[in-house]
């Protein structure tokens, strides 16, 4: 390694020289389009990518859903029923029936599509009353479950339960003690900052902190499964503290 120590007063000059020689290189390249390759061959225009998510995926009639989409290398993006939209964005919709949202992203490199289906639960007709806790009705069982077993949120780069996390875990433990048939899977999640590998380990610690709280409150460890998703399954993707906070959580689900 060769190292040159450049005094501060010459640094901008050194930078200009570097820029000039870069320019000279590029000019030289122009004379020999086919024979002088730049240091790296320019990658071809990449095909666009698109993703579309809805939260929640199932609602009761009249409730709203937040659509969240991201695209890369797209010049125009449209969603059926909503028309042209920004390349990345969020929109709240209130569908009147179950809807397939279809996103098309067009760019110089091609076209990409993304779909998400939102299920709208229309109240059952009174003529066919059904008990709300049938085993087939997973969605409403999930709803009751989430009301009683709320997500636990964490401070930045921490896996220690905050005071409200401790009380949330107590509420969850009480519900699970009253419903011994339910098995739980705890997902550990992190915000988008930091390293993917480290965040998977941190997410494991978060989910295990929630598990430990439940076990200390009397829930059998054999009913609880832990999965870390790190920052691989983001709930939202804005670079804001409120979004980061929603992602830094241990999320409980019924383990079916």
């Amino acid at each position: 390694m060769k190292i040159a120590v450049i005094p501060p007063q010459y640094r901008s000059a050194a930078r200009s020289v570097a820029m000039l020689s870069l320019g000279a290189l590029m000019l030289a390249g122009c004379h020999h389009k086919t024979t002088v390759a730049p240091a790296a061959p320019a990658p071809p225009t990449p095909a666009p990518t698109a993703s579309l998510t809805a939260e929640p995926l199932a609602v009761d009639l009249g409730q709203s859903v937040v659509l969240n989409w991201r695209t890369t290398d797209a010049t125009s993006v449209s969603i059926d029923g909503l028309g042209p939209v920004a390349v990345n964005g969020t929109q709240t919709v209130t569908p009147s029936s179950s809807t397939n949202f279809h996103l098309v992203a067009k760019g110089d490199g091609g076209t990409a599509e993304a779909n998400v289906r939102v299920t709208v639960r229309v109240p059952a007709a009174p003529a066919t009353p059904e008990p709300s806790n049938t085993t087939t009705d997973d969605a409403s069982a999930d709803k009751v479950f989430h009301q009683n077993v709320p997500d636990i949120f964490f401070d930045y780069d921490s896996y220690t339960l905050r005071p409200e996390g401790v009380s949330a875990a107590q509420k969850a433990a009480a519900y699970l003690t009253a419903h011994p048939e339910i098995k739980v899977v705890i997902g550990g999640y992190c915000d988008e900052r930091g390293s993917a590998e480290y965040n998977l380990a941190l997410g494991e610690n978060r989910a295990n902190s929630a598990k430990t709280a439940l076990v200390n409150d009397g829930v059998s460890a054999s009913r609880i499964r832990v999965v870390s998703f790190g920052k691989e399954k983001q709930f939202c993707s804005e670079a804001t503290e409120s979004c980061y906070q929603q992602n830094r959580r241990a999320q409980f689900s019924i383990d079916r």
Partner: protein
Amino acid sequence: METMDRSTRTASPSRLFRFLGAVLTLLLAALLAPAGSHAAQDQVVTGTNQGVSSIRIAIPNFKPLAEDAQTGTLKTVFDRTLFSDLQNAGMFDVVSKSLIPPGTPGAPSEMRAAAYAAAPANASFVGFGSLGVVGGRLVVNGFVFDTKNAQFPQVLAKQYSEEPGEEMARQVAHRFADEIIRTLGGGTAGIAETKIFYVHAAGGNKEIWEMDYDGENQHAVTHLGTISLSPRISPDNTRLAFASLGKSGFQIRMYSLVLNRTVAFPEVGGTNISPAWSPDGKQIAYSSSRTGDPEIWVSDPSGAEPRRLTSFRGPDASPVFNARSGAQIAWISGRTGLPQLYIMNADGSGVQQMTDGGYATSPSWSPNGQAIAFAWNRKYGPGAPGGQDIYVMEIATKKWIQLTSDSGTCDFPSWSPDGRHIVYACSPNGNTERSRIWTMLANGTQRHAITGTGSDMPNWSWK
């Protein structure tokens, strides 16, 4: 540097390495200056390719051996690849093609070396030859002449005969470039034939992909339809270890590049991620939370005989063996709060903390065993400015240099086997969907992107 003391057949490379040793000492002195590390860091500019210390080589276009269209196409690919390989190598000052003397020498008898030694080319060496599709074979004759040695100028002569095709023309150019680098570079093998494995994101999934070291020939290795991360190629290039999301969370998976399918690796409880190979290929280290807390474990490559090395509460991840000796492991631990870089002996003893602030991740041990490249956000925190950049730390002294700046969130550095290059990934926000893979010389110069967006977590093959 390993190559420093080796004798070479030309004087300039060994002089170069002695000089490099001297300036490295200067750099360390600068780091120790009482003005404080911040000011000192800002004044350091590094470069292996500045001034007169690199070898000036001219590469005239090869002479066509035939007049057909296929020869023309393959020659274009070959000429471009060879020129680019030598430019990328980090040890040459490659003469611009506009300064090359007229004529297209295809054989030693046609080479007028004196014209290359004179201005404006001023070349110390010239690499030349001929290429054509002859009798259904791609035939390439390559030579290197020392322009200053009038009596015995020939340094290298190689002949290749292969199936014709653009991919093969590129591979032959890579092989000839590696021969030139080995001959003129003091015996260190070139990297033009090496591969880079990486994560490619599309449609919500992440698969493991492979490409040539220069970003060409990008293609998928896995088709698992889930999220796969952290590809690590075995030292003999036969197996690929990685982590993949299944029903029970992330597990270590093993893919055979010989059988072209995943091979058995036992699933255990908890999150199992970030595998790493020992340089002899007989062990892998990885992060496993089978005990309920993520710790560093080591097993043989089939997953047998697992044993735990760390036992501190908090995240432990991203282990990597000392690439030269295999006797030490560097990894990332959050035992004191934010993740920091640590090293220990391969049996878990002798733990040393290497960084003492910021957010450090993703170590990669240099092939000569003396340095660790890693990603570091030295001003990490909610609302704090500054990006995450690639750094190299000399292990013996814990002195570090910053290699990237103002590039967003950079992560996952991985050394090339010759120790002259580092591949890494940068994105505006840390998301794979917007991440590109870059390479640079190990002093931070000659940075360039080699992929489009959606590419992350590069891992350079061992050979």
